[in-house]
């Protein structure tokens, strides 16, 4: 692991157990995040994005969910092996998270000030007065001019965009090295989305925090991310830089995702879509997880599961089309 890697996830596997069956929701996921970098994790609903982030935080819903294998190295420590006490110090302090639903992620019975102060006092062991001061500064940083008033307000008095900004202020107030943003703009309208994205970009520079951006919105990805991990059925199917993903997607699933974005140039009668839905973890097909929806499916795809291969130094893909040996056959198929 190089010096500037903040987070290194290796072969992470998280499963849900019901009765005696094991349902893998995160299956052999590996990726790493460098200092100050923004990494996007993209995929449809149910592809295991959120479970990956909860696994990193060690907050997989118990008692049914469990991390069954792999490592999550954060600053050289494997978080999977840490005890609960260490995790309490990591959460909020080293790794913070913001969520999709800003309307419900603040506690309705406490004022904004009380909520910002509580976690500051808990993590930094500072006085209430100091915490209040930091809270006001953080609120100003995220663009509240009346920060003093906001501290006294209850969450119901703020709009969705304002609450998301409060969440960002709280998440960044302990100066975390990594911020996990789980669909931070999905519940907001477009103009507010742009503000929040701007804010996140600005603050990640200012605080030198790495960001893991979880989303299904490729527009947001293009806006913010430097590298992209595409997930499907609990697995990483492609990893590449932002340019490569948009210019030359390797995996048929990535291609399908990109084709389903409306284009400005040219007329298009209907948007392309990927046929079918993401298979549920208890209903994964034999072989490649994507085989049932893949336009290029070959015989081998139905028999054996492809592995994640290094295409070049910065690209990885999990597809037989790009594996040596079967590659030629695939290319022919693709051009036909």
């Amino acid at each position: 692991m190089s010096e500037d890697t903040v987070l290194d996830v290796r072969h992470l596997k998280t499963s849900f157990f019901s009765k005696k069956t094991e349902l893998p929701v995160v299956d052999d996921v590996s990726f790493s995040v460098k200092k100050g970098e923004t990494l996007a994790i993209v995929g449809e609903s149910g592809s295991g994005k959120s479970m990956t982030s909860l696994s990193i935080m060690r907050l997989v819903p118990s008692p049914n969910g469990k991390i069954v294998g792999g490592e999550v190295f954060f600053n050289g420590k494997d978080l999977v092996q840490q005890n609960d006490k260490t995790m309490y110090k990591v959460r909020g302090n080293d790794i913070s998270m913001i969520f999709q639903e800003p309307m419900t992620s603040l506690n309705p019975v406490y004022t904004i000030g009380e909520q910002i102060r509580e976690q500051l006092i808990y993590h930094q062991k500072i006085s209430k007065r100091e915490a209040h001061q930091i809270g006001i500064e953080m609120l100003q940083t995220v663009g509240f001019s009346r920060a003093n008033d906001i501290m006294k307000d209850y969450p119901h008095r703020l709009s969705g965009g304002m609450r998301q900004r409060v969440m960002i202020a709280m998440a960044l107030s302990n100066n975390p090295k990594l911020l996990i943003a789980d669909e931070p703009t999905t519940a907001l309208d477009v103009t507010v989305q742009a503000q929040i994205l701007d804010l996140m970009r600005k603050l990640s520079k200012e605080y030198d925090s790495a960001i893991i951006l979880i989303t299904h919105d490729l527009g947001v990805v293009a806006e913010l991310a430097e590298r992209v991990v595409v997930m499907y059925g609990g697995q990483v199917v492609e990893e590449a830089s932002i340019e490569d993903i948009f210019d030359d997607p390797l995996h048929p699933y990535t291609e399908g995702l990109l084709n389903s974005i409306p284009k400005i140039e040219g007329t298009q009668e209907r948007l392309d879509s990927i046929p079918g839905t993401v298979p549920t973890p208890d209903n994964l097909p034999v072989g490649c997880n994507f085989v049932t929806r893949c336009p290029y499916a070959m015989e081998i795809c139905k028999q054996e599961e492809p592995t994640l291969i290094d295409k070049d130094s910065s690209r990885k893909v999990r597809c037989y089309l790009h594996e040596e040996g079967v590659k030629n056959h695939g290319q022919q198929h693709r051009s036909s």
Partner: protein
Amino acid sequence: MDENQMKQEVKPPPQVTGAETLGKHESMLSIILKKFFQNKLAVIGLIMLTIIISSAIFAPWLATHDPNATSTLDRLAPPSAENWLGADHLGRDIYSRMLYAGQMSLWVGFAAMLSATTIGVVVGSVAGYFGGWIDGVLMRVVDIIISFPSIFLLITIVSVFRPSPEMLIIVFAILSWTGTARIVRSEFLSLKKREFVLAAQTLGLPKRRIIFGHILPNAIGPVIVAATLAIGAFIITESTLSFLGLGISPPTATWGNMLSDSQDLTVFLTAWYYPLFPGLMIFITVLSFNFVGDGLRDALDPRVVEK
């Protein structure tokens, strides 16, 4: 959704102040108080309770006689300037005894309520938050306790042990925390799935703080209502036991054992005032607690919009 309802409820009337869209900071408490005081019955109940509770507290100053002093001359004396509400079959002043009896009844009611609510809240929170086998074990214990017919269990226990007030409180608490535990558990089951709980977890707050600091305050409304109504129920139960001769033993006065003492044909025929006043006190007190409980229920329920 709950938030939306809460939002509706606490939103101040639309203000036409232009740029400053947010009005003055209205705290949750002031809204609750406002809604409570709009309910006439609740206010009447509160006033009655204030009078009853202060009369119990100030009994030593308000009483005209020693509550246990007997006087053979005044046996079953009718209300007069000397004995305001008459005297009982031993010539004790009913008015003074009633004040001291109030002390005992209210003390048993409040103490039993506090202990039962504490046990119920802790058990319910833990069961609801952790779920799984912890929930299973705790809720089976609740089922077992509920499955006993409590009045018979009470009678058995108090006939075996000599019923001191402390003993009664402990027995009441052990037998009646189950309702609160179920209420709190069900609130926790829905609240723990809310995103602010996950948000608190990702901020690294410890479990104890999340359970009691973040989830419990959101679930406290129904608990307060249940607790208020429980005081009334405990006073009734204590009176029932005393009436059956199994409650707090004489000469200590309680409203229940005053009623019990007046169970006598001669008393019924000649001294109507003896059973009437203690009975009236039980009636008014319990009714007031119920009014206040209902008022609190409406005031704490965000779905009830203020008029």
